[in-house]
């Protein structure tokens, strides 16, 4: 691949037919760092429905309790079978309505995300937003999350992609989206004031529901967000960290209005925070309240294992499934010496010779393929419903990765026969409604000095402009970067 084609495609999201012509070079990539707009106007008018997440969780909790009571009373009277267990069965109308709104919200936010990428003149930085959003993956597969996933990317990731890693880590890992997604909001310190009071009550009243420590977020922060699975932590560290994280939650009735609302909408409540000094990776943390977890996160952000882990992932994203060790070392060194300055890390990446090697380094994931396809066709007025559906069918809905590890960044996960067939289906449909002028010229423009002879010939010989455009969308040049 030519350097110009690498700058456009490997680093960015390809040529935008409707955009102003820009130089395709390392210099322009560096310039994108200065031009990037973390809060574009398109996000200003967005209605924030994130408070609904807490309401939905409360409603579900109430509904579960009612169902439990109903089951108990039915069991007591031995009249018959327990009510249906399905997730949607017997949902109260307000809860059902909230779930419908949730779907509309996530579709709208996915549309905004796509639109920003399609229209961006700083596509490298958009790509970094998506890279980090996937690093701190959250999913709307959990109740209430539809109102939070967009917020998470727009407010916890996007403003920090050229800032300090430690700031992004604190914002992303302690955002309501993550607190809900990884069950942190339900976690209660074993000796927190709330538990002590509850034990008092239990002596006099019927047993109340069990609340306790949940290790999920602590473990995933170590494994997926900072140190990596071989980063040197053990189960005792997980438990200590989980205790330090108690108190970080979202609005709920049990707190009875205690707790401090954070800027992200998360709540920190001493009432459920485990008191005491924590010991993690050989260091002691005697801070109180919210500061304890924040201090630990800062420490994790500067840990050598974190530098190594982040460097490896970033290198894999830009230079291939098996990145050059020298590139990993370069990024790792920058991450450590700059104190996790992500703008500096981005500059080092752009200046690294390993990122500019000739052959195509990566198989495009469905989201990148769709963004590039829309940019090159110029069919930018597609409805949110349509693009959302296309991404679902292509196998990569935004904010719906199958696990907290996010979507895989390896060709083996995406280069499958069925996945390829779906791109062919989508491509032919897209090409029917797109501007059809000068497909061959557009192809040469999109892959400067890198359009293969056979592809060019296939485009020239197509029986119609629509067919030529569809072929361009599924050409080997479009499938890889």
């Amino acid at each position: 691949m030519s350097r110009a084609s690498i700058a456009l495609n490997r680093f960015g999201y390809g040529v935008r037919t409707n955009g102003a012509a820009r130089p395709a070079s390392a210099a322009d990539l560096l310039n994108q760092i200065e031009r990037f707009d973390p809060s574009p106007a398109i996000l200003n008018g967005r209605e924030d429905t994130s408070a609904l997440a807490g309401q939905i969780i409360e409603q579900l909790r109430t509904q579960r309790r009612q169902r439990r009571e109903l089951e108990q009373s039915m069991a007591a009277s031995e009249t018959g079978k327990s009510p249906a267990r399905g997730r949607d069965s017997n949902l109260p109308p307000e809860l059902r309505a909230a779930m419908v709104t949730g779907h509309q919200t996530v579709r709208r936010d996915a549309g905004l995300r796509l639109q920003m990428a399609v229209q961006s003149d700083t596509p490298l930085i958009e790509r970094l937003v998506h890279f980090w959003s996937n690093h701190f993956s959250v999913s709307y597969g959990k109740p209430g999350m539809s109102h939070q996933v967009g917020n998470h990317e727009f407010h916890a990731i996007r403003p920090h992609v050229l800032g300090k890693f430690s700031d992004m880590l604190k914002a992303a890992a302690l955002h309501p989206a993550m607190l809900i997604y990884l069950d942190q909001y339900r976690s209660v310190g074993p000796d927190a004031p709330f538990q002590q009071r509850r034990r008092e009550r239990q002596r006099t009243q019927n047993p109340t529901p069990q609340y306790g420590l949940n290790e999920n977020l602590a473990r995933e922060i170590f494994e997926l967000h900072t140190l990596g699975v071989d980063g040197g932590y053990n189960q005792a560290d997980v438990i200590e960290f989980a205790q330090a994280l108690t108190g970080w939650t979202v609005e709920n009735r049990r707190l009875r209005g205690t707790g401090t609302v954070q800027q992200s909408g998360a709540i920190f409540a001493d009432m459920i925070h485990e008191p005491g000094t924590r010991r993690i990776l050989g260091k002691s943390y005697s801070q109180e309240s919210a500061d304890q977890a924040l201090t630990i996160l800062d420490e994790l952000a500067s840990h050598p294992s974190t530098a190594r882990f982040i460097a490896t992932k970033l290198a894999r994203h830009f230079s291939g499934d098996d990145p050059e060790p020298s590139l990993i070392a370069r990024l790792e060194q920058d991450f450590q010496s700059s104190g996790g300055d992500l703008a500096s890390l981005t500059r080092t990446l752009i200046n690294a010779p390993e990122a500019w090697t000739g052959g195509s380094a990566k198989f495009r994931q469905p989201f990148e393929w769709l963004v590039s396809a829309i940019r090159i066709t110029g069919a930018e007025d597609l409805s949110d419903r349509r693009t959302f559906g296309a991404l679902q069918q292509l196998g990569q809905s935004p904010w719906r990765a199958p696990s907290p590890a996010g979507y895989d960044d390896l060709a083996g996960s995406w280069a499958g026969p069925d996945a390829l067939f779906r791109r062919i289906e989508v491509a032919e449909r897209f090409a029917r409604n797109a501007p059809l002028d000068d497909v061959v010229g557009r192809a040469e423009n999109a892959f400067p000095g890198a359009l293969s002879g056979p592809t060019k010939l296939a485009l020239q010989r197509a029986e119609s402009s629509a067919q030529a455009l569809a072929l361009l969308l599924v050409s080997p040049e479009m499938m890889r970067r």
Partner: protein
Amino acid sequence: MTNFKTFTANRRSILGGTLALGFGAMAMPRIAFAQSGGSKNLLFVLLRGAADGMEMLAPIGDPGFDRLRPEWNERFADSRKIGGLFAIHPALEQVSSAYGAGEALFVHATATSYRERSHFDGQNLLETGGMEPYASRDGWMNRLVGMIPGETPRALAVAPALPLAMRGSAPTSSYAPSNLPDPSEAFLDRVSSLYADDDQLAGLWQSALETQAMAGENSLRNLRDARAAGELTASLMRDEDGAKIGMIELGGWDSHAGQAGQFSRMATRLDALLGAYRASMGESWNDTLVLVATEFGRTARVNGTNGTDHGTGGAALLLGGNLSGGRIIADWPGLREGDLFEGRDLMPTTPLESVLAGAAAEHLGLDPQAALATLFPGRNIAPLTGLSKG
């Protein structure tokens, strides 16, 4: 290794003795391996997210169960009890009836060699068959395809993307129904010639066209309906020229909070999938083996949010028309404090790799020892055999 048809708790001493004998004896090949794997079907069902083996097949008769999970016994009031110790989860109705018909068996207290608690590493090892996460890039199902003598059978994952277990040098593909409009024939032809000079895309494209032809016309738009997914999988496998090696995934088992409802929902889906697959395979069911496994078990003790956390030992499920089923295979470790792995998990006593390699090899007429060495190399264990009627 002991088959629980009838027995009373409590037991390690009894079972421990028979294990040594039983394991050695069963490791010996019982049948000649000349038989061709040609007409045999094998389906691997991967439960992603760590399905709780102690809820799938609950050891309700172990006194430790009530202590570790107070009041959970009540959930199994109406379910099939086995040997006074175990109960099959009530949502697994069709599995239970297959068990009754001798066409299903459970293996309990089983785990891969993985002893940490990361889903992703655990799944990676269960899929690659490696000893270290990410050390191996291909999957054991793919290597299994490569072991089958003669013409390479079709291998297909019913999934939107090819799962790691199926990736590798042997030809495999994936298929999932979509609601996208069919491309025109003219366009398909053009794509074929566009990819002619590109090895990777040409290979994928060839495989995609073959699978499309096999799936034919169906009205499915996705795999969300578990019963329809089971029927679809069967329709892709039951005919002579269909896929012989199949895989399907069912994710959503990671029950950190409020496990009762979540597990019940997931078990209902699993049951619908397996029941529909069994029914739709028709006569081919007699030549079919289904292996159901998950990356690891969950903590023996209920956590603070009425769920369970990542654990170790769990359960596996086997079904098939030729299975010597209606039994539970387990060297039950017990649930007293000292019995638990690291004081928190069900102690794994049967290597899951032995089960998968042994069962697959026996079913396909391969040498179990060789299969274990190829599919799950580097382990000092013996394959589990004697699972089929022979």
